[in-house]
């Protein structure tokens, strides 16, 4: 992806993000009680935050360095939350963050494909990080589609994938977010991986 593509994201004013959103605590609590509007609002906040952070970090990183989703999500949490603590909210937050990361990455992969299709001959100077991600982006869209199918069949194991793969959470952290035991999450993870692997292999073969 060219640097130009990131320009709009790079210029997200960082000072705006250092202020904690006073609503987040309340929104997270309402979201925890099942309020759909609150969930949508949290999602929006988190999505914007992560998108800005990802853009700024990508621009600042020297080639070859990698950005860890875990670090990104944790940083977004700190920024949105400011200093005060409401630990239960963190679980809801991570759920939203995982979905946001998935959207951001899939969007990027899509726009990259569009770009390649649109003007295949234009040579764009590639930064190191982009080249490193080329392989991943091709597979990302297929994975996203397979994951959408898995969501239909087995929402819980799909959720584990979202947390593990897109938000970079460990098994233990995912267990905390989902309120499940370590062993259960591990089993869901095994199943989801095998199911997705199989789905992708079959997709590639057909």
């Amino acid at each position, binding site marked *: 992806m060219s640097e130009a593509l990131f320009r709009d994201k790079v210029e997200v004013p960082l000072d705006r993000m250092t202020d904690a959103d006073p609503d987040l605590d309340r929104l997270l609590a309402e979201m925890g009680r099942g309020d759909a509007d609150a969930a949508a609002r949290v999602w929006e906040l988190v999505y914007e935050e992560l998108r800005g952070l*990802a853009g700024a970090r990508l621009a600042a990183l*020297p*080639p*070859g*360095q*990698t*950005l*860890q*989703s*875990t670090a*990104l999500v*944790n*940083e977004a949490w*700190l920024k949105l*939350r400011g*200093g005060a*603590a409401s*630990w239960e909210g*963190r679980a809801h937050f991570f759920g939203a963050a995982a979905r946001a*990361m*998935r959207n951001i*990455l899939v969007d990027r992969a899509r726009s990259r494909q569009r770009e390649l299709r649109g003007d295949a001959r234009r040579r764009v100077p590639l930064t*190191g*990080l982009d*080249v*490193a*991600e*080329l*392989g*991943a982006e091709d597979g*990302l869209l297929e994975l996203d589609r397979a994951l959408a199918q898995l969501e239909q*069949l*087995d*929402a819980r*194991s799909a959720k584990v*994938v979202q947390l*593990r*793969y*897109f*938000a*970079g959470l*460990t*098994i*233990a*952290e995912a267990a*905390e977010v989902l309120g499940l035991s*370590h062993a259960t999450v591990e*089993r869901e993870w*095994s*199943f989801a*991986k*095998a*199911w*997705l*692997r*199989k789905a992708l*292999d079959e997709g590639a073969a057909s």
Partner: protein
Amino acid sequence: MNERTAATKGLFLEALDLPAAEREAFVRARCADDAALAEEVRGLLAAHADSGEFLEAPAYAPARGRAGLAADDEVGPYRLQRVLGEGGMGVVWLARQGAPLVREVALKVIKPGMDTARVVARFEAERQTLALMSHDAIARVYDAGSTADGYPYFAMEFVDGEAITEYAAKRELPLAARVALFREVCAAVRHAHQKGVLHRDLKPSNLLVREVDGAPRVKVIDFGVAKALASDEVGLTQSGTLLGTPEYMSPEQADQAEAAVDTRSDLYSLGVVLFELLTGALPIDVSSREGVGEVRRKLFEQRPRRASDLRASLRGDLEHVLARCLEKEPDERYASVAELDADLARFLAGEPVLAGPRSRRAELARFLRRHRVAVVLTLLVVAALGAALAVSLRQTGRALRAETDLLSLSDQLSLERALERLAAAPWATPADEPELAAVEAELTTLLGRLDAHRARLDAARVGATTDADGGLHFASDAQAWQHRLAARLVRGLEALAGDDPAHSALALVRERRHAAAQSAALTTEAHAAAWAEVRRSLARDQRFDGVDLAPQVGLVPLDLDAESGLWEFWHPQSGAAPDRDDDERWIVDEDTGLVFVLLPPGAFDMGARRPVQGDAPGDANVDPDAEDFEGPVHRVELTAPFFLSKYELTQGQWLRLEHANPSQYQYGVDARIPHDLRHPVENVTKAACAAALTRLGLSLPTEAQWEYAARAGSGLAYGCDWQPLCLEGRENLMDASILRTNLRAMVPGLPLRWDDGYPMHAPVGRFAPNPFGLHDVLGNVAEWVLEAPITYAGSTLEPATGLRTGELGTSGEIARGGAFLSPLITARVTSRNTTPAGSFAGITGVRPARAVRE
């Protein structure tokens, strides 16, 4: 979840709990009446076995596998041709090197997860030792570097052969032939051990056999690679998996007991290879798929198979030889590969081998070992009781911990940000002081919370158990993470305390703040009269026509150099003022700071072309060694005067500025010749040089500035003449002196016939200056320049500095000028030596420049 999915999932998970061998029977039994269901579950099980690293790395990290490389891509000086193989560590490519010599190499590109800079640094540190090896059966490792995307790579001699076990199996070699072939491996490894090099990853795929004149010949590949890849926690990759190949790994290596890994670890691996070569099986069944703990347990506890159980003809001598190699305790193995080789020679000669049946002593040692395990187990039980008591404490701790995490995380981020700010903060002028003061204040505040964080660390330890070795164990990953977080922060804050700028960021920021605050007072203000004199002197000098030089903060005028007629200046921030010797030359001592020469503006013809009909030797800008990249010849006019260091930056100066000495050849590292801090700093990346200089208000010279300075008015290839003989006594180059040392193995071409007295780099300023009064420009170490390798054709230059913009001709970076260990043609004033991006080497250093400020 629908019923069908639920059934499939349930069966899959149940099957997963069974040992792999029993799963098929389980599926058949449970899906007897539903073939489709069975197929579904089998498919999932197969996919599971196949899923390995699938999805294990978060999405937002670089792709694994081929590091985004494809055939025809360029990696450093190599062009990729095709994939030779793909393994756990990465991908091996067949690649072609174009310059300085054309050859095919095997290029091993390591997959993500490694800290590239450290891998390359470790390889560089090992390079000299590797160069000492010279054996027909050892493949050379030429080079290590990083790809444009930052993956480490190794360039090695390409060997078109097959693994020793495959070779023997395909040709059905008889026993004696196998042993004889294996002895060639022994000879190679023995040679390496004598030179002090361990292999650490001996396995059949690193022991290649090819036929030369109809006879099989062995080549051992990958020497030095495993060591370079080893992380600080020895033998483990950063993701915590075992580095290397468990099947052939010695127990002590799997245990990451680095201190215990010596030549006998390689000997163990050789034993496994010989076992496989003779029996077709492994002595212990372990595989890369198993976890670290499982591998370790098997290697330590499982008794190796008896070779004679697999192949009766091995009973007796060879069986004893194998058993001796595969002893768990290094002391019980052969003392060296030479001893093993001697026993194999005895076997082939029909004499009795020295490795007899296991001795009574060995039996006793094994009993004691078992006993020791029992002692450890007892201790663990005691520790577990302690853990039970801690559980109740944990409940109350939980609520507190959430807050702790946030505070720790936020201070951790503040600390990292402050350190980043410090790393980027200039400290050249008084104007730089406020930023440094702000960083100092931030660090001081953070340090003030050290005690609070220490208390949090103690709290995070509540509920943890301590094992016999003092290691902490936590009930959950979350707790372990909390502890790690707190511990890291406390470590980071503790490092702030202390007065040594080399270790304490706080001391460093204070030192730099002080230097910035004093920079004007000590230079322009204290030496106002001298600056006025410089100004008057330049007004009379036609070369500086129209130049009105303002006093330059950070520099102190020294004198007008008698030979060059150019003013020279001392840079106090990098060290003491230079003294003069009896010949009125400056003495650069270990504590001397930089000396800058103010070069006049001027025009010159840049680049070179090869001669055509009608050209005569000595014509300006004509050079039979010129490469296309050095042309076309074009006029360059530098309209601004600039400061250029009279000498290469010394190790002493780098040490004072950066509080470290990264040089490959430095005192205490290389005992073969005496070194001190007067030698040029090397082994530094261009980026590191540029960053360090920028903070000081200095810079790398532009490529045009460099060539202008190197030519000093000459149009000839070597400055002093069109051919190199004039450089004798003027530059430290790759000359006959190196043949006197045992480093001659490293010499990549024919050295010069003369002897300049310095096999390695010399203290700066030991050789004659050029007409501008600059020393060592064309020799000693090569020097980084500011721009990337831009093609001259179609490029544009900024008039004042000659800063070039245009199309990149190749990837990587340019270092100009020759060095004590580079081919003579690189010492031409026009030679543009390209190196891989991010690379550093013992032959490349830096000559700082500085713009004239208003």
